């Protein structure tokens, strides 16, 4: 069986073909890059996607050696994400599904990050830490759904880094750049550390970090301290959730999962609780087609499809609202 997956929730337009066994036959992406000092402009990103869509999808099929007529399903990320961007991917997916009479499969982008994480790490029943531009959430599987145990109460970890970067004229996504600057300092400046139960709040940290910079602290010191505080806050929230759920695995996934400081801190948390830390394969941290194709394959095998007439995009689709019919409760 072959499933084509199309991702277009934010800056990346991606397409991928996977097999029933979880082999990723192709992974083609083209990302919209915003000017330094600016964020994603939804309309411009959507225009980018519509220009590259045909080439990306053709290459994904070509690299996999699979013809569109051979596909058993077309999976599309219907949300959450930016409306104009989502609509480009959805239009492409609907066209292919309609022309070749192939089932269309609705995929939640966040669930995609989780499933590509379990596929590439072999994690069985993990506490999931999903960190990206759109998410900072701690989730565990229970009663047929991924339940949120903790999350940000305002901006995400990815937002924190991107919004900070924008102020100092770095391009987004800015995580890697901030990580490089942080590595040049070990001078810790006190910044607000806000944990509320299993939740975190980063907006005060953003304001304070920018204020310290204006007050004359060096960029390296501020990046180091902001990264330390933000990752430690999340590590504490994860530790609380781990103690509460008693899970024995942690799965770090999403774009910010590439951050080594965060990886190290979560590995420390796992060590304190005899849990195994997993990090999604580096190649699939960022938004990509395989996360949608593989989740689509899992859904298709369980009979989840959607009629084209009902395949509206859902910019605010919560991951905890998705029925995960393909996953069994670990006993």
């Amino acid at each position: 069986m072959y499933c084509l997956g199309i991702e277009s929730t934010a800056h990346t337009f991606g397409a991928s073909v996977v097999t029933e066994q979880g082999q990723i036959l192709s992974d083609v992406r083209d990302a919209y890059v915003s000017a330094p000092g600016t964020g994603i402009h939804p309309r411009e990103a959507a225009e980018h996607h519509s220009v590259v869509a045909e080439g990306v999808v053709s290459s994904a099929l070509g690299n996999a050696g699979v013809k569109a007529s051979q596909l058993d399903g077309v999976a599309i990320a219907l949300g959450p994400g930016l409306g104009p961007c989502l609509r480009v991917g959805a239009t492409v997916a609907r066209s292919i599904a309609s022309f070749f009479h192939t089932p269309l499969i609705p995929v939640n982008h966040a669930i995609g990050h989780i499933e590509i994480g379990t596929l590439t790490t072999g994690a069985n029943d993990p506490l999931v830490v999903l960190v990206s531009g759109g998410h900072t959430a701690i989730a565990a599987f229970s009663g047929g759904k991924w339940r949120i145990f903790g999350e940000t109460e305002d901006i995400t970890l990815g937002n924190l880094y991107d919004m900070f970067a924008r102020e100092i004229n770095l391009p987004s996504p800015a995580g890697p750049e901030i990580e490089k600057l942080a590595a040049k300092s070990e001078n810790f400046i006190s910044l607000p550390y806000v944990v509320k139960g299993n939740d975190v709040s980063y907006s005060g940290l953003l304001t304070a970090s920018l204020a310290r910079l204006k007050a004359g602290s060096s960029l390296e010191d501020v990046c180091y301290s902001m990264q330390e505080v933000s990752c430690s806050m999340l590590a504490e929230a994860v530790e609380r959730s781990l103690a509460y759920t008693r899970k024995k695995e942690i799965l770090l996934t999403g774009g910010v999962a590439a951050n080594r400081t965060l990886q190290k801190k979560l590995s420390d948390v796992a060590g304190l609780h005899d849990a195994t830390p997993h990090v999604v394969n580096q190649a699939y941290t960022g938004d990509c087609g395989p996360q949608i194709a593989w989740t689509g394959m899992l859904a298709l095998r369980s009979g989840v499809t959607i009629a084209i007439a009902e395949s509206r995009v859902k910019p605010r689709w919560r991951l905890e609202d998705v029925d995960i019919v393909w996953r069994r409760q670990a006993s």
Partner: protein
Amino acid sequence: MAVRKTRLPKPYRVQQLDATIRRGRTVHETNLMHEARKLGVPVPAIQHIDPEISSFVMDYVDGPTLKEELYVVSPETRRKQCDLLGRTVALIHEGGIVHGDLTISNVLCGDGKLFLIDFGLGDFSNELEDRGVDLLLLSRAMKSTHTKFHEEIFAAFLHGYSATVGKRLGVETVTKMREIEKRGRYFDRA
């Protein structure tokens, strides 16, 4: 019987940050527990505090957590217990204290009462916002653990809470809770 609570250093925090947090929370938590007890809320009595090693000793409460108890008791008892929890939380809120980490694991059932523990993330506050966070954390803990009857037990909690703080303030706090929830990611704001 007594029990000692010690905040151990966390390897995932730089030493300077870690020391500040551990010492600060120890002092803060014992303060809040002391004040909550003065309000007549069941809270283990503090016996001894050692801020320099981020540690304190308190009375031992002999009983399960509310989380554990809710798995085994009858529907009637679990409604009664959650109603009582509502009344207990209302008392600290009315006394100007918010818990900051309100979950059913941080409530101990002993001696026919519900003891509140783990005030480390709490605060002295009369803000509706902070009270709303308490309710949201509790609601989420119920939802994620007792998926089959979380609505029923949270409703029982609200019943007890509103019976104590008054209907108007009860409604205002729940409205604030929903507002905070919707600030989270990807909630339909309609």
